[in-house]
C-alpha cells in the first residue's frame, strides 16, 4: 500500500497533473473575486470565508477524474484489482494520495490567500483548522464519485454533477466554523459536525467505492 501511495505521489508530481494545477486554480479563483465584487475591504471581509471554502472545493474537484481514469485507461486498474491489495485499501490510498496533492496544499495556502481577501485575523487559524478537517472528506467523496464514473469516456462533467451536491454538508459546516469564530460566537457545534462528516465518509465510502469499481470493471 505504501508503494501505491508513493507511486501516486510521484506520478502526481511528475506528470504535472493534480499537484500544481489545483493550487494554481485556487489562487486564480481567489484573486479573481476582488475584481468581481470590488475592492471594498468590508465586503471582502464578509465573503472571505465563503470564497476560500468554495474555491478549495472547486479546486479539489478539478483533479478528481484522474484518480482512477488514468489507471483504468492504461490497464493498471485491472492489474491492481487482481493483486493482493484489498480493493477497499486501494481506494483509501488513492483518496489519501489525492488529499496529499490537493487538500493539504490548499489548506496550507488558504491563510495566505485570506490576506488577499481581508479575512479577519481571528479567522486565520480556523480556516486552516476547518479545511484540514474538511478536505479529507472532499477527497474521499470525490474518490467515490470517481469510482462510480470510472470507465465512462468524458465522465468528468457527470462526476462533478454527482459529487458537488455531496459536498454541500462539508461546505456548510466548514464555512460556518470559520464564520462563527470570526463573529465571536462559539463554533463547537459546526466543528463537531464537520469532523463527524469527515469520519463518517472515511469509514463508509471506501467500501462503497470498492463495490462501484467491481461493478464498473465487468
Amino acid at each position, binding site marked *: 500500500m505504501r*508503494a*501505491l501511495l508513493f507511486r501516486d505521489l510521484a*506520478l502526481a508530481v511528475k*506528470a504535472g497533473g493534480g499537484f500544481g494545477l489545483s493550487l494554481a486554480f485556487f489562487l486564480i479563483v481567489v484573486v479573481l473575486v476582488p475584481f468581481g465584487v470590488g475592492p471594498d475591504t468590508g465586503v471582502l471581509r464578509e465573503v472571505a470565508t465563503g470564497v476560500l471554502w468554495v474555491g478549495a472545493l472547486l479546486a479539489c474537484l478539478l483533479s478528481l477524474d484522474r484518480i482512477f481514469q488514468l489507471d483504468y485507461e*492504461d*490497464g493498471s486498474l485491472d*492489474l491492481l484489482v487482481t*493483486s493482493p*491489495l484489498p480493493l477497499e485499501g486501494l481506494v483509501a490510498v488513492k483518496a489519501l494520495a489525492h488529499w496529499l496533492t490537493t487538500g493539504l496544499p490548499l489548506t496550507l495556502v488558504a491563510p495566505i490567500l485570506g490576506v488577499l481577501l481581508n479575512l479577519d485575523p481571528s479567522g486565520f487559524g480556523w480556516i486552516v483548522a476547518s479545511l484540514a478537517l474538511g478536505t479529507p472528506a472532499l477527497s474521499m467523496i470525490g474518490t467515490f464519485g470517481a469510482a462510480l464514473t470510472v470507465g465512462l469516456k468524458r465522465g468528468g462533467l457527470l462526476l462533478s454533477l454527482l459529487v458537488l451536491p455531496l459536498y454541500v454538508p462539508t461546505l456548510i459546516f466548514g464555512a460556518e466554523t470559520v464564520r462563527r469564530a470570526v463573529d465571536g460566537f462559539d463554533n463547537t457545534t459546526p466543528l463537531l459536525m464537520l469532523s463527524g462528516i469527515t469520519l463518517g465518509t472515511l469509514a463508509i465510502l471506501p467500501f462503497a467505492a470498492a463495490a462501484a469499481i467491481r461493478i464498473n470493471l*465487468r
Partner: protein
Amino acid sequence: MELVVKNVACARGSLRVIEGVSFTLRAGEALVLRGPNGIGKTTLLRTIAGLQPALEGQIELPEDAVAYAGHADGLKGPLSVAQNLTFWASIYGTRGIECALEAFDMTALLDRQAQDLSAGQKRRLGLARMEVTGRPIWILDEPTVSLDAANTALFAAMVARHLDAGGIALMATHIELGLEAKVLDLTPFKARDDAPEPFLDGGFL
C-alpha cells in the same frame, strides 16, 4: 495446486457469449485458448482472474494464486522501467526484479522512461511483470502481440520455466509457442441464446 473450471458461462456486458466451458489444469500444465474474434476468450480469462463473476458454473482455484496480464500493460509512462517493476514487486510482496529483467533482456533499458519504449518493449515490460508477481497461476491475454520472433521465444522460455517450477499458465494466443500445452477451441462453447440477460443490474442488488 489445481485450477478447475466447471461448466462456466460468462457474459460481456449484458451479452452472454460462452457457456459450458470445463477444464482442469494441474501444476506444470498450460492451456491455450483458441477461437475467432469475439468468441469470448478475454471474457473467460477475466472471469477466471476474478474481474467479473461467472453467470453459471464454478471456478475453483487456490486463494491469491492468480496473476493476470490483459491487453493493456498497465505501465506508467513517467516512471522508469525499474520503477514500474519495483512497484509491482512491492505490491506482490516479492523482492528482486533482476530475474524479470534478464528474462526479457531488458537490463539495458533499466532507466528508460516507460513512455519512451517501443510497443514491443512495453509489451516485454508488461510480461516481465508476471515474473515479479511470484504467483503460480498466470492468465495471459494475447501475450505475444507486438513481440518479434526473438522475444516471442524469450516469452516461451519464460513460460516454460514457470511450468517447470510447478506453475500453471492459461493464455489466449494464436501463435505457436512450441510449448507442451493443451489447446481448447472455444468455438463449440458459443452461447446458443444471444438474448440479453433479464437482470441487467443484478450486480447492484
